[in-house]
């Protein structure tokens, strides 16, 4: 491991940091403190700027018009992009492009023309429908949505929960069981479903600790899609979903660390100006130790996450490293924001500051994209089955 950033990385970090401070944070002064969306005209203006920066569609490979960033650089930028009030779930309000649907890069030419290219141009948006009422951490067993073949078509029936963006998306990637009940991960297929397909309903918003960014519940009642809607191979949907989930956990972890850095910075500033019992907060040992604990948490999480990113770039298996990063970053960032609130006292829990929003949203991060406990299962399996010998033996 070595994290001496190169000149390109330093320049990109500087550009994104300036963008967040000069373009995003001033906008938030006018927005509701829970807001996750910008008016379309404002977002369009920001996207013009990110395109000029060469950073629009941040996750797209170069052949699809993206900057073709390696994972370490992408991780560093994710740490910068989240450093504002809405940054955890709406980093820069989507100014750098929509969430990546990496599966579409493997689509047929016809599917790319119809779905991928419009997404990259910002003309269409999508949702990712994997989780079901029976569970999200173990999709191979919990998926009960079924797709049955009918001639050349498929008929989809089932329910999905905790799906973001489905109410306004143009299409979605929907994972359904095409094998029998015992088929496990080999019996799951991914379908591209247009949102206006008869039988598809967004039944409700699932209200959570978040307010601006919300998940929905979806119902599929005899939704008929053509055979050309299958993405990849029949029965290979789980592998496709799994790959996406694993890689996404790296920027997911990095976003948490960015928020922790921003909260830590606020706490340090406040400790230097607020006086109690005749001294600045910063002069009290109890506060000093909290700040040091924050620094330890942030540095540990950043190093573990950058290690996972470096591992992903190396071409070596990186599942264990990503699971560790997801655990450490989400848990540590939650602790950092909690301490920052404590240092701010009553102001820390008001909507005058972003801390209370980060506190609520970071709690969700320990569950989303695979719970802490699921990540621990992944690591322990790899340790106990001898696939992973430990840090020093890599």
């Amino acid at each position, binding site marked *: 491991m070595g994290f001496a950033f190169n000149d390109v990385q330093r320049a990109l970090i500087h550009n994104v940091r300036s963008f967040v401070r000069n373009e995003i944070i001033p906008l938030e002064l006018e927005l509701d403190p829970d807001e996750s969306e910008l008016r379309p005209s404002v977002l369009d203006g920001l996207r013009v700027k990110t395109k000029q920066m060469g950073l629009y569609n941040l996750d797209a490979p170069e052949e699809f018009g993206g900057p073709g960033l390696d994972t370490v650089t992408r991780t560093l930028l994710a740490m910068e992009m989240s450093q504002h009030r809405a940054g955890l779930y709406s980093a820069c309000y989507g100014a750098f492009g929509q969430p990546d649907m990496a599966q579409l890069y493997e689509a047929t030419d016809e599917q790319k023309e119809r779905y991928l290219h419009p997404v990259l141009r910002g003309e269409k948006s999508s949702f990712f429908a994997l989780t079901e009422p029976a569970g999200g951490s173990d999709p191979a067993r919990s998926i009960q949505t079924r797709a049955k073949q009918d001639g050349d078509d498929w008929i989809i029936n089932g329910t999905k929960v905790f799906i973001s963006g489905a109410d306004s998306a143009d299409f979605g990637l929907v994972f359904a069981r095409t094998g029998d009940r015992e088929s496990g991960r080999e019996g799951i297929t991914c379908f591209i479903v247009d949102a206006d397909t008869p039988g598809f309903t*967004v039944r409700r918003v699932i209200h959570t600790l978040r307010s601006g960014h919300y998940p929905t519940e979806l119902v599929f009642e005899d939704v008929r899609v053509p055979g050309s809607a299958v993405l990849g191979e029949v029965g290979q949907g789980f592998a496709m979903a799994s790959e996406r989930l694993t890689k996404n956990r790296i920027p997911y972890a990095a976003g948490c660390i960015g928020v922790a850095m921003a909260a830590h910075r606020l706490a340090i500033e406040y400790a230097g100006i607020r006086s109690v019992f005749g001294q600045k907060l910063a002069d009290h040992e109890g506060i000093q130790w909290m700040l040091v604990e924050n620094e330890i948490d942030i540095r540990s999480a950043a190093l573990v996450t950058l290690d996972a990113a470096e591992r992903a770039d190396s071409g070596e298996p990186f599942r264990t490293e990503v699971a560790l990063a997801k655990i450490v970053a989400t848990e540590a960032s939650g602790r950092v924001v909690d301490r920052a609130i404590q240092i701010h006292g009553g102001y820390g829990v008001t909507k005058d500051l972003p801390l209370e929003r980060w506190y609520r949203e970071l709690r969700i991060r320990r569950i989303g994209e695979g719970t802490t406990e699921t990540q621990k299962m992944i690591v322990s399996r790899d340790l106990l089955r001898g696939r992973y010998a430990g840090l020093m033996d890599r």
Partner: protein
Amino acid sequence: MTKAWSPLTAETLAEVPATVGVFEVADASGVIGIDYAGGHSPFGLRGALQGWLDRGPGLSFRYERTNAYLSRFREVVQVFVNDTGEPPPNLAGTENLPTGRIRQN
């Protein structure tokens, strides 16, 4: 939103909490406004509804106090648009109109 409607008067408004939440306003023609009181709304629901009371008599209202005011607002508006085919008048033609296809049944 399924709560009962109340006439919008100074007396009924005094009972409304100054918290965040979502509300609907109607006149004799039906719902004319769907909105929320958020983190920057002075005096929360009470303050937001005061603005409607100031427009004149003859209105009724109902509200839900909820910390998930933005997601609930967007849900209520989308269901309204799906049920009636048009946006509530207070949001028509504005960039604040949530778009989407949520419908309860």
